[in-house]
């Protein structure tokens, strides 16, 4: 997975990204080799929180309970949703093209990063006219989002993946227990997030609204964000309320439904953007894909779904990657 020791310079390693204990974790910016593109990561401290919503929360759905305690290990999380600029560097092989254009010879790092599968070119314009530079990438399958993380790992030499549903909610709440990370009043949503009420024509550039208490932008709205989990409606009832759940994740085995969180510009009702609100993927999200088998990479009708990456302080072992299906699992029905 990694090219080895002593490659910090080639990886464009930011010294702030290096930490072995939670206390050493800092925010950092990572540049992508051969490009002018970078992304920012924010440290999320470890801790225990109550996952799910209380039964009296307005707009609450059955699948948000019962509430239960979850322990989360420290990680960094993308300050913003992954943008088209970052995503297309991988998707359209712009890094390879820029390297060739600059006449730089491939090295050991490139060999690993180039070995990660990239999507086939899109059939239609996947921004749907909503904007590209600085806007969140959308309409990717969960497989594509996971494959991007795999590439980013090889590209940077540090381990990135999608968050679990629990990690996502923990980061979204940022220590709060209210319906939103800014309180209970949906009237204030306009200050913190994009939803149908203030952005009916599409997504917006990332980072324009106020962040949550831990410095994360657009956790409520703009685009919904992929998590690792299979969507299991009664998943929360599997936990013993007297104990603290450690790394709860509904390990995925079926293509549908899987979890997305945070709501999006496409959601009319503010309650769909609450910290505890759960959404699930659906075959309808690619109904306009005219090919059979349908694409592994694109969701033609989910222009409200994107993702955000996390980097655990302690990267998983090979066994854990296998056990929790943290790797890009290719669904059987999409194999050509």
């Amino acid at each position, binding site marked *: 997975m990694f090219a080895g020791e002593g490659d910090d310079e080639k990886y464009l390693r930011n010294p702030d990204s290096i930490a072995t204990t939670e206390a050493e974790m800092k925010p950092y910016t990572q540049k992508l080799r051969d490009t002018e593109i970078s992304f920012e990561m924010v440290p999320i401290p470890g801790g225990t929180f109550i996952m799910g919503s209380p039964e009296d929360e307005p707009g609450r759905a059955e699948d948000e309970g019962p509430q239960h305690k979850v322990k989360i290990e420290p990680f960094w999380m993308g300050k913003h949703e992954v943008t088209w600029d970052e995503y297309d560097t991988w998707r359209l092989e712009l890094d390879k093209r820029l390297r060739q254009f600059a006449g730089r010879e491939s090295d050991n790092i490139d060999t690993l990063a180039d070995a990660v599968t990239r999507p086939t070119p899109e059939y239609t314009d996947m921004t*749907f006219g909503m904007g590209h530079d600085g806007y969140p990438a959308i309409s990717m399958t969960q497989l594509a989002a996971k494959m991007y993380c795999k590439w980013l790992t090889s590209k940077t030499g540090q381990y990135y993946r999608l968050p679990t549903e629990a990690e996502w909610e923990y980061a979204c709440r940022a220590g709060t227990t209210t319906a939103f990370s800014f309180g209970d009043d949906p009237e204030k949503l306009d200050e913190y997030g994009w939803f*149908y009420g203030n952005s009916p024509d*599409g997504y917006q550039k990332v980072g324009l609204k106020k962040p949550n208490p831990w410095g994360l932008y657009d956790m409520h709205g703009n685009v919904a964000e992929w998590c690792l989990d299979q969507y299991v409606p009664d998943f929360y009832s599997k936990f013993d309320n007297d104990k603290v759940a450690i790394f709860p994740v509904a390990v995925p085995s079926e293509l549908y439904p899987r979890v997305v969180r945070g709501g999006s510009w496409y*959601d009319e009702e503010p309650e*769909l953007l609450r910290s505890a609100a*759960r959404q699930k993927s659906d075959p309808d999200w690619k109904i*306009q894909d005219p090919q059979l088998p349908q694409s592994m990479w694109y969701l033609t009708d989910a222009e409200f779904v994107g993702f955000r990456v996390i980097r655990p302080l302690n990267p998983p072992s090979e066994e854990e990657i296998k056990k929790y299906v943290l790797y890009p699992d290719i669904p059987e029905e999409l194999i050509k």
Partner: protein
Amino acid sequence: MSNTSRRDFLKHTSVAAASAGVLASVGSRAFADGDDTIRIGLVGCGGRGTGAAAQALSTTGNVKLVAMGDAFADQLENSLKNIERQTRKVEDAHIAVDDDHKFVGFDAYRKVIASDIDLVILATPPGFRPLHFEHAVASGKHVFMEKPVATDAGGVRQVLEAARVAKEKNLKVGVGLQRHHQPCYLDLVERVKNGEIGDVLAMRVYWNGGGVWEPRRTRDQVASEMEYQMRSWYYYNWLCGDHICEQHIHNLDVGNWILGGYPVKANGMGGRQVRTDKRYGEIYDHHAVEYTFADGRTMISQCRHIRGCWNSVSEHGHGTKGMVHLSSNPRSCKLEYANGDEYQFKGDTKTPYQIEHDDLFAAIREGRSYNEAVNGAMSTMTSILGRMCTYSGKEITMDEALNKGSSIMPSNLADLTFESTPPTVPDENGFYPIPMPGKTEVLDS
């Protein structure tokens, strides 16, 4: 989610629309001497043909797939597997393709059409379409054919003639220009035709994207030049027609639809700026064309296959009282009125790829006339006219293009084998001759 979201609402409306269709067709089920099963064959088993077959099988009433044909055996088996998987839960979809009805090779279309079928799906690379369509009509079969329906003017003339015969025989013909069946297009085009944005004076239409699939085989992996081109057909003009024809036809067709006719002349420019490697055959990576209609109205068109550029797949009409914006994404379809008001499409989001088959099969079951071939041929010709302009650099009239456009097809199309020589071949370094504006001739003298 317990909340009724907008997404759920849209889903419900499309379910309601679907059940209305079911009710409408009950009572006229009798088809082919009391047996209501429509027997179909598939010619061209790529991703689109496979999808089309699954959609045909998913229409209301019994449909049975009984024969399949493709130039390549590997393609056919994969296709069958995927159709089975996709239609497993469709009650009245039947698949009965025995080994005697799996046909491989250039003549597979003849054998599929000669099978006991009512309708044939034609979904090979478009260069073969005129030959296949003509033969299907001569054999008395209903047809669903993918767009474009030809790659040169001779092919378009052949399709127009076969369309006339199909009409005489009352054969039903659907063409895969699915925007004509997409609720957001139907709604907004009707509003435009009703004058909601005044008279439309000009159209802008785009298919600017990053390109399509990469060439599928290297020279080492194939036995002949013919196989090399057939495997990567998109990059060869006689098979594909260039992307202005193969993809951009959708947007040009919408422009024709709204302006209510076909252009009388065009001029344009284009070239091969980025996608220049020899494995990308002979097609351009960008075209920009200005079409003029009989009354002087204009359609401005762009199509591009270059990564990292401004992308759009959409159509826009400029009227005297507002604008219309269309795209295959229903959420982007709207009217903007001159007074600042907007109308946003919020209706059915059912896939038009299914609806186009629902409509065709309903017409067959109900015995209604149904023929999309002439419009399919003329919108194909619109795209070919554009290509003739970008390749030659000249202004060309539709009349000249349609009647004097040079053939780009092999003269022995009906008798091709994998040993035949395609109409263009590479030089000793593997590069194909590229059309050159100012030099390339596209009309017969």
